[in-house]
């Protein structure tokens, strides 16, 4: 089937707007990540208790945040570029990054929900056993 959906003037403007806002969100995520890194490093230097667990938490959440933010950034950059040059392949790449962003968000959501369900189950079991 011939796919005739075009990116016309109206959707162009909306894509540009979404690119602007997502760029802004990505930058804020990066800044937040940098602050977390600084906080963890300062915690280690000061010799705070629990700094080691902080590193593990930082690595996990930091890597995830970094991947999401950089994908959002790539989506924003490529969308803007493709709107200027009219290149469909760049837009395709942009959508690829957005897809990854949403996929990671969805998988994280699933993980959190399962952890929640698991937590509730464990709490119920413990309550029943007593």
């Amino acid at each position: 089937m011939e796919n005739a959906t075009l990116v016309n003037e109206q959707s162009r403007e909306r894509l540009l707007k979404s690119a602007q806002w997502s760029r802004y969100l990505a930058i804020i995520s990066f800044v937040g990540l940098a602050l977390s890194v600084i906080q963890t490093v300062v915690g280690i230097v000061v010799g705070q208790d629990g700094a080691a667990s902080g590193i593990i938490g930082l690595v996990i959440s930091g890597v995830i945040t970094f991947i999401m933010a950089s994908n959002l950034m790539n989506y924003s950059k490529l969308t803007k570029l493709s709107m200027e040059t009219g290149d469909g392949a760049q837009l395709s790449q942009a959508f690829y990054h957005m897809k990854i962003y949403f996929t990671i968000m969805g998988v994280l959501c699933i993980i959190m929900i399962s952890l929640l369900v698991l937590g509730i189950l464990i709490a119920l079991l413990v309550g029943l056993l007593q």
Partner: protein
Amino acid sequence: MLEQNKESIFGIQIDLDSRDYLLETCKWARFLAIVGMVISGLLMVLMIFSFFSLSQVNDAFSGFYVLYILVYLGVIAIYIYPVIALYRFSKKLRIGIDQADQLEFNEGLRFLKGTFRYMGIMTIIILAIYSIILLIALIGGISNFI
């Protein structure tokens, strides 16, 4: 060259790759939106629950109830707008791509823009609130030294 650019901007096809990426994005967006709606529903149930348990304890504070419900509804409303926008984005984009409907596709993009814009504005507001709190704390801390 300008005309050539104009023509290709107006004529960017959604090729097979884009279509696949967009459809998969739609699926996840829809999932996230449904999870968000479930959470909002749970919040509402929680609100009704806590309202009833509160009303049994204090009978004297009737004006308090209205405020309580308003605050709760406000929180739910704040949370649910991007969820709805995300859902409509996924739905309209899906229709636009499957049925090659230009209007639906554009409407879908409108909601994507709306979702990002909303998240951006909320982040600005939250950052502003944090900065104000930080400022107040700093001023309070400094005034203790004076």
